[in-house]
């Protein structure tokens, strides 16, 4: 798989986690791609933390409205039935548990469900934006990322080393190598990515994996 294929695989698998009627916030980057793979018969309401629900796809070129952008400032649309609101209301929705799921990338995630994705001290400090609110407030937090960093460095760890975005917040990790659930007992490998062995996944992971007794091929 090349990078594009890996990312599509991950986005497709995450899309299957979303249920009809769910209010979902997708992070910028790969998580945004998830929207492209939601089945026709599943109505997911996308929330954009800069202030609206029913986020739609990018407009046709020339049809951009400078006042309708996503949380990454890219031009988007609003679908019928949507609503705009201010930032206090937007985060009342997020913090108040009115978002069924948030999908975010990660720099590191660990077996306690801790998540680090907002800064690398001394190097990259973009700020947490709405990420801390989202991982704390959303009912379900799904990490969507490539399994390892450049050079194969582990991103799924026994314990995060970078400053946390949230403590014990992650529910599910979806990578090109598999689907991992965060449980009280540790990380449970539920599904395995196409072409990988359990050994491959364990070797690419910095924490011990519990292999689910019903381990399946990744459903995409």
């Amino acid at each position, binding site marked *: 798989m090349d990078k594009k294929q890996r990312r599509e695989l991950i986005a497709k698998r995450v899309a299957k986690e979303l249920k009809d009627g769910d209010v979902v916030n997708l992070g910028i980057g790969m998580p945004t791609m998830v929207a492209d793979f939601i089945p026709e018969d599943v109505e997911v309401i996308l929330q954009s933390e800069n202030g*609206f629900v029913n986020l739609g796809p990018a407009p046709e070129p020339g049809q951009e409205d400078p006042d309708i952008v996503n949380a990454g400032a890219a031009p988007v649309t609003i679908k019928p039935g949507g609503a705009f609101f*201010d*930032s206090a209301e937007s985060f009342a929705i997020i*913090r108040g548990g009115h978002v069924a799921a948030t999908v975010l990338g990660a720099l590191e995630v660990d077996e306690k469900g801790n998540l680090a994705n907002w800064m690398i001290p001394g190097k990259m400090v973009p700020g947490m934006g709405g990420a*801390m*609110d989202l991982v704390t407030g959303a009912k379900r937090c799904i990490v969507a990322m490539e399994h390892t960093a450049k050079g194969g460095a582990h991103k799924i760890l026994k314990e995060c080393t970078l400053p946390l975005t949230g403590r014990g917040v992650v529910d599910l990790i979806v990578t090109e190598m598999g689907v991992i659930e965060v449980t009280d007992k540790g990380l449970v490998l539920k599904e395995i990515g196409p072409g990988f062995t359990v050994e491959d996944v364990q070797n690419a992971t910095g924490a011990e994996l519990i292999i689910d007794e019903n381990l399946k091929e990744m459903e995409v």
Partner: protein
Amino acid sequence: MDKEKSLKDALEKVNDGMTVMIGGFLGVGTPEAIVDGLVEKGVKDLTVIANDTAFPDKGIGKLIIKKQIKKLIASHIGTNPETGRQMNEGETEVELVPQGTLAESIRAGGAGLGGFLTPVGIGTIVEQGKKKLEVNGKEYLLELPLKADVALLKAKKADRAGNLIYSKSARNFNPMMATAADFVIAEVDEIVEIGEIDPDAVMTPGIYVDMIVRGDK
């Protein structure tokens, strides 16, 4: 009472060393004409409270480039590399705040609350220096209100009494900032007579707004 004034009048209200709230999310919903005026005026040592510093050539980013900001309170600076550079080299003090906490702190400032308890930031460096309280077995951070000397807003439409209507996702932080500053200035695209805005459609009541100025549009 007609609250429409000139851009010059507005700029006179913003002076060196002040704490200024500026609306907008990555430049969308930021009063660009007022920001350009502040750049031209060369006002400095500002404490700016805003969601982000947009881009180097847009919105609050322009005040960063000109080094007019002494302290920044924001949730995100990643789209303007110069902000990070100034922070890392100690030229500008930057306080990063979770976006929802920032919005709520500004609201609390305007609503006369002494603070609020949020679960956001528990277990992270956001905890540092803050009081923690347990309510019904759950841990919360006590976050304090934010206020400013001046708030600079962008709205689509105003009537002469200062009632405001925002446009789409350009609303963002503007309504809270309208409540939390001693002096509130809104840059608007359109000014209509009193009575032309349906009282049910008002997004920011005119009682919060001291001055309105026309934007470039």
